C-alpha cells in the first residue's frame, strides 16, 4: 500500500517537450492547429505544450478549454454531480486540426465525451489526442496519437497526476486504492 512516484517534475518537462516536437513533426500546417485542454488537468498541460511549440517552431497555437460534464455517459448513475466548468472555444473549429490534451487515458469514455462535445461545436478537419499517461484498460476503440508514458496498471490502483497549476507540485504517482482514500 505505497505511493510510487513514476514521473518527477523533470520527467514531465522532458516528456512534454518531446510531445511538442512530435506535434510539430506531424502537423505541417501548424497555423491551423488548436490545442484543446480537457478540464481540469488537460488545461495546464495544453498551455505548457503550446509554450513548448512556440519555443521550438515560433508558431503561437491557440489554447482552448473543454468541459465534458454535460456529455458524460454515466450522469444518471452519479449521485453527486460533477462541477460543470466553462467550455471556451474562441474561434471556429471548422476545418481546424484539433489536438485534445488530457492527463490520463484510461477507459476512453472521457475522450468519447470530449469528441462529441467538439463535434457539437463544428466540423474539425481532424482530432488528435495527446495524453501525459496511458494506463490501459480501454473500454472503447480509442487510442492516443501522442503518449507521454505508458503505465501498465491494475484497476485497483490509481494514477495521480499532480500539476503545479492545480495541485502545487509536478508529479505522477501510482497509488493503491486504500492509500488514495487516506490521502483525501
Amino acid at each position, binding site marked *: 500500500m505505497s505511493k510510487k512516484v513514476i514521473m518527477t517534475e523533470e520527467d514531465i518537462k522532458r516528456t512534454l517537450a518531446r510531445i511538442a516536437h512530435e506535434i510539430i513533426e506531424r502537423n505541417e500546417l501548424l497555423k491551423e492547429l488548436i490545442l484543446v485542454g480537457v478540464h*481540469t488537468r488537460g488545461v495546464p498541460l495544453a498551455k505548457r505544450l503550446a509554450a513548448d511549440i512556440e519555443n521550438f517552431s515560433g508558431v503561437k497555437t491557440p489554447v482552448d478549454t473543454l*468541459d465534458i*460534464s*454535460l*456529455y458524460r455517459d*454515466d*450522469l*444518471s*448513475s*452519479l*449521485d*453527486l*454531480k*460533477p*462541477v*460543470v*466548468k*466553462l*467550455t*471556451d472555444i474562441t474561434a471556429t473549429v471548422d476545418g481546424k486540426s484539433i489536438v485534445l490534451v488530457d*492527463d*490520463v487515458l*484510461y*477507459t476512453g*469514455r*472521457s475522450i468519447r465525451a470530449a469528441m*462529441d*462535445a467538439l463535434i*457539437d*461545436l463544428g466540423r474539425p478537419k481532424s482530432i488528435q489526442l495527446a495524453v501525459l499517461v496511458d494506463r490501459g484498460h480501454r473500454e472503447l476503440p480509442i487510442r492516443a496519437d501522442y503518449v507521454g508514458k505508458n503505465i501498465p496498471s491494475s*484497476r*485497483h490502483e*490509481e*494514477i*495521480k*497526476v*499532480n500539476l503545479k497549476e*492545480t*495541485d502545487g507540485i509536478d508529479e505522477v504517482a501510482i*497509488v493503491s*486504492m486504500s492509500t*488514495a*482514500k487516506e*490521502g*483525501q
Partner: protein
Amino acid sequence: MRTKQKDNPTLQLKPEVSAKTAVWRHHHVLDVDDFTSEEIETVFNTTRAMKEVLSRPIKRVPTLRGKTMVNLFYEPSTRTRLSFELAAKYLSADVVNLNASVSSVAKGESLVDTLGTLQALGADIIVMRHPHSGAPYIAARYTEARIVNAGDGWHAHPTQALLDLYTIHEHKHKPSLKGLKTVIIGDIMHSRVARSNMWGLTTMGIEVTLCCPPTLLPIGLGPMGLGNKQLPPVNIEPNIELALDKADIVMTLRLQRERQKSGLLPSIREYIQLYQLTEARLARAKPDALVLHPGPVNEGIEISPAVAHGKQSVINEQVSNGVAVRMALLYLLSGSQKQ
C-alpha cells in the same frame, strides 16, 4: 490532495466530496430557504457554463437524453413554463406540458392521484405550479420524481429568486455580493417572488429592505427576523424615497390587481402616487443600481415605462438568464438516487 477519479469506475460507486463534485444535496427544488451560500455558488457556476451552451449556434447538449420532464401547471404562466420547456429541450430531455384546466384535474382528480399517474407514465422531473402554498411539498412526498417548484401560492418561487440572484451576481459579484443593499418594492404580501428572494439575498449576505404600504406587508417580518430564526432578517421602510437611498439593487414587484379586491389599497392611483418606481425616485439609488422585475410588468403602475426600458433595467437579462439557471437546476437534479 486531489485524485484522478473521472475515469475510475470503482471510485464512482462511492463518490466523495471533492473539487470535482458540485456542492449540492437537494433531491427537489422547493424553495431557497434551505440553500447554503455554497449551493447557490454551485448554481451560479453551473449557470455560467449553461450560458456558454446557449451562446452556441446549435444550442443542445445530450445531458438529459432519455429523461422526461413534465410541466404540471395549475395556474396560468407563459414565461416560467416556456423557460422550463426550453431549458429541458436544450438539455435533450423530453417535455410534456400538462395544463390542469384541460386535463382530468378538471374532472376532479386529486393532486396525489395526478402525481401517481405522471410517475406511472415515467416522469423523472415534475415542474409544478400550484395556487396553494405548500402543494409541491406534498407532491415531493408522494412521488419518486424530482419536484421543482415553479411557484406555489404566496409561498415560494425558487427558480425566479435564483435567476434574480444570478443576474445580480453577473453585474455585482466583483468585489463581492456581501453588503450590497437591495430594496424590494411592492405587494410583498402576495408575492412568492419576494419571499424566495428574501431568503436567497440574505443567504448571500445581501441586505434587504422591504418597501410597501403597511397593509401589504406580511406579519412578523423585521430586522433579525424579529427574533424568529424561521424568518429572514429584513429592514422595513414604507417611505420609497428613504428606502431607495444609496440602494445597489431595486426590485419592483407586479401589483397583482386580481388580488387587490379586498380593500388593502385605497386605490391604484394612490399606489402609483406613493410607490411607482420613477426616474426621479431611482435617482436616489446608486448611479449603477440595477432595476429588476419578475414580470409580467404593469408599466405605468409599479414602474414607469422610462425606468422599465431604461439603462439600469435588467428585466430582459432576467428572462434570458432564467433559461440558463433552469438548465443548471435540471442538470443538478438529474441524478438517479433517492435522498
